[in-house]
């Protein structure tokens, strides 16, 4: 409200926006979308059977329905899993078995004007492609629906196999073990290491690398104990869980 004096335009158009978007119309979809009456009135029956392997029919039929082309025609399952959808005019329809717990593949059923039936796989992209399916329909469930995502569970292997952890552990091992294997107090050995280090870094502008290494190795006892301590520390930490 305060801004009204400063930028009246903004307010004006906000108003217009609100007004327009709040308009109330009672639009009703006309009745034309409803029943399309067939002039010849020939009605046919789509028959078939649905099977859920390993589950008794009475455990799932009461929650299942047969939908033909959305909810255009509805059928129900008999207690033995068979079904028939009555009163369907000729045409091409997608027949689905809807169950909240089990997954069924949809089938396209073509009915000619004389009542000949054909079932084929549903292909929305190549709609004219025909891969025949048995008719009367035999629809076998491909198992229960998977509605849920898996939680990421935390396990030991996940932790150890983590590349970051691997990258951390390996150098740690080298740092801890190398001084034990190689006697750094031996002057010959020290020389050798220095040489190899120099070979590794041939850039003469960085001579302090070898120096760093030697320094590191001489002081390695202190630091290694520290590093070892912390690594020891994380392990019991996870064990405690």
């Amino acid at each position: 409200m305060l801004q009204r004096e400063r930028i009246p335009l903004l307010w004006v158009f906000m108003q217009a926006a609100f007004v327009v978007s709040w308009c109330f119309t009672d639009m009703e979809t006309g009745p034309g979308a409803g029943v399309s009456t067939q002039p010849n009135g020939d009605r046919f029956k789509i028959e078939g059977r649905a099977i859920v392997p390993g589950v008794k029919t009475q455990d799932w039929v009461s929650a299942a329905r047969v939908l033909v082309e959305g909810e255009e025609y509805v059928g129900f399952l008999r207690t033995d899993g068979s079904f028939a959808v009555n009163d369907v005019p000729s045409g091409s329809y997608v027949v689905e078995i809807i169950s909240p717990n089990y997954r069924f593949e949809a089938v396209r059923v073509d009915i000619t004007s004389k009542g000949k039936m054909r079932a084929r796989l549903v292909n929305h992209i190549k709609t004219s492609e025909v891969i025949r399916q048995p008719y009367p329909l035999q629809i076998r469930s491909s198992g229960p629906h998977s509605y849920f995502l898996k939680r990421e569970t935390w396990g030991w292997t996940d932790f150890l196999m983590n590349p970051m952890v691997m990258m951390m552990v390996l150098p740690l091992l080298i740092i801890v073990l190398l001084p034990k294997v190689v006697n750094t107090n031996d002057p010959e050995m020290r020389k050798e290491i220095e040489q190899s280090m120099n070979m590794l870094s041939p850039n003469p502008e960085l001579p302090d690398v070898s120096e760093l290494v030697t320094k590191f190795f001489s002081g390695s006892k202190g630091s290694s104990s520290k590093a070892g301590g912390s690594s020891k520390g994380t392990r019991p930490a996870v064990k405690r869980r």
Partner: protein
Amino acid sequence: MAKAILLFLKLIAVCSIVEGVYEDQVGKFDWRQQYVGKVRFSHFDSQVQSSKKVVLATENNVFAALNTRTGDLSWRHVDKTGPEGNIDALMQHGQDAVLVVGNGRLLRSWEINIGGLNWEIVLDSGSFQSACLVGQQETVKHVAVLKKTVLSLHYLSNGHQKWIENLPESDTVDYQMVYSDGNGQVYALGVVPHSHIAIVAYSTEDGEIIKQISVEAPWLSNVQESCTVIGKGMLTCVDPSAASLHMLDLHADSEMTQVLLQSLGLEVATGFHPVLVSTQPNPARPPLAEFFLQLGPEQFVLLQLNSGHIATLRDFKPAFLVSFATTGEKTVAAVMSPKNKTACSINLFSAENGRRLLDTTLNFALDSNGGKPEKMYVQAFLKKDDAVGYRVMVQSEDHTLTFVQQPGRVMWIREEALSDVVTMEMVDLPLTGTQAELEGEFGKKADGLMSMVLKRLSSQFILLQAWVGHLWKLFYDARKPRRDVKNEVTIENLSRDEFNLQKMMVMVTASGKLFGIDSKTGTILWKHYLENVPPGAVFKLVVQRTTAHFPHPPQCTLLIKDKESGLTTLHVFNPIFGKKSHVTPPALPQPILQSLLLPLMDQDYAKVLLLVDDQYKVSAFPSTKNVLQQLQEMASSIFFYLVDSSQGRLSGYRLRTDLSTELIWEVVIPTEVQRIVSIKGKRPNEHVHSQGRVMGDRSVLYKYLNPNLLAVVTESADNHQERSFVGILLIDGVTGRIIHEAVQRKAKGPVHVVHSENWVVYEYWSTKSRRNEFSVIELYEGMELYNSTVFSSLDRPHAPQVLQQSYIFPSSISTLEATLTEKGITSRHLLIGLPSGGILSLPKMFLDPRRPEIVTEQSREENLIPYAPELIIRTEWFINYNQTVSRVRGIHTAPSGLESTCLVVAYGLDIYQTRVYPSKQFDVLKDDYDYMLISSVLFALFFATMISKRLAEVKLLNRAWR
């Protein structure tokens, strides 16, 4: 090869944005309520004494069984909507329930224990009149179906037709009733109005006509309404004009005998059509000789036919409802009579002698916010001492089912009005008393330093008190076993939670009953039945004042528009308590064409509702001086539009300062070519966070965010497969300028549209390829923004760039909505209600017209998914997992206090409430957050540093000694 790579890339893209439900989240923040609708027929399963089932057939074409102990659904079968799924009759015999469906088109038999279909057969065409079970020699084997011209008999075991016979003289006689009493004959009873009754008796064996009689009855016009069969085949009809009963023995050829009601000492209430109620407990036996005669709206008489004479057993006055019930060999009559203003009492009477049975009184409390009782279904059973016990299911005007046990304990209540929710709103809950107190402190004017300090201290003290109380409750509850702790939600303890996730769902149902439901638990907190709501009325609910303006109560207004006259009434109420507001709404003598909620507020912070009548005059509610003054000031900037779909006219108006209106634009869509199906504007509470999209080359593509844009959907008048089309027009609602027009050839409706931000998504049926297709239109300003501070419809010279892309969707859809969040930062998802009952949450990312066919470096930079013609449905994207929502009609989305979270309510036959996180929960810790791990790691690290410090000290000391 390239295809394979593309597919792979697509899969990666899909996997990376997966969003769904985890199994441990089931029922944590979602709930579902299942309904069946207004009950038309109901039967208690009386086969077994200990049965717990009641079967219901409803006006919503649903056939279901309820558990009578809990009121929950055992199973439910939802048929097609409309007349083709309409249930005409329900007959129950043993474990089988036989239904006549779709005006006598289908005959179905259900096994009521498991809810499976026994058989279904198609009957010959012809309009259905009546059906009954036919018994012979104590067993029931057949069912007879009477149609306009034929009578057919079917086996109960498999539905096969035993015989079908034409009815004689069916062109003049209107056959309306079929009757059988187990003596090997089926009677078809018809009437020639105001002339005579025709009775045809068929043999059950072969359908041969045994007897055909016609009896003069010039006073009779409808057999079903005024006649019934009592005793051993005595057709009894009531003649309201002569105030008499007419009786005819079906087995003998005789004239009708007239019994004047006066001779029985009875009198019919003036203007009331008397009704006969009889009972036939076993279809293989004749009906009982006792029957009820309703003489007035509140008067019933129990009569008995005894060797041709009628005797009055008992007069019930006043009585609301009567019903017969049979258990074993005993038949009783239950009578509901008023006790006082708030309660009724139900008593059982012996049908044989009309004597009241002892200890059978049941109190039934009338709900002051509900309707009157309308029907009563009685479940009678024999107690151990052979006395009759009973339970009652009462159906009231507002479609509520109440199941009551003696002596008046309500076992369950089902609010079946909720099966038909028309519109809803989600209202923020109010702050608690203490919170409000704190708020109030800042609102009031300063009194002085000292009092302010005191006030501050006192409010802090209140907070402390509340906190201590809360701690104490926690401690107290912790000692009690878990199941004893009840966290019941009542209106009194309702308060807003930290993140505003809990809201009040105000639902308006077609029957005119309003509900307030707690969104967290689904508890119905208040209900209010509006009487005198015309059937088929149109409702619109607006929130005029939210809970943010303490101490002013929140205020909602419901506009109820009679479809025929167009007259509108207003109901103003408090959405938290459901009470009618003391604010008196204006009387509206003229039909209202349009209503709009302005962002203007009156001095009491109520938003102004503007109503436009058919004279194009505008009235405001509330209409105080303050409001009118504001309106005059603002008038030049208030625009609105009107739609006349019958004439295909869209017109835009502006308001003048004297509150008259002025036509400024008009668009006519010729109705002979196409008709307007729907118009969608944007939601007023929608926020768009980012003005544009960052492209791969770091430039910005600005969105065209016109708040006044309307998406108008048209369908062709020609329904032929080759010539039908669906059109979409984008019109500016202020100027009438057509921004864009698109036509989808060889397509037809129903079209579902979502219009939001800078995009419109619509779905239609492609008649050519026989599949459902989605199309998305996005509008962009281009690389530069014309005026970035404010959008003006009147000053926007450049036409926006329009991008469009279409996709195949592998299922038909029932409804479409988009998620909505507080600030619009979170990415959007489309919520698609499928006929299977699933609600699919499809990322808007998949419906992006900039999805490239060839992947380039830039498109990858932008995170665009390569174009694929078919959208996939993954069951992991179903936000309601196996909690399917039948016949989903609408999805309501509302923002919560958390940016990541959007509240979703899907309603149809069922109601389902949940939360969705389109971009995952980025602003709160996840609910599986591992507090144990993080704290143990922290502790361990802490101890490790302590230990290593100690070790290092020891080492240093050692070295120093060396």
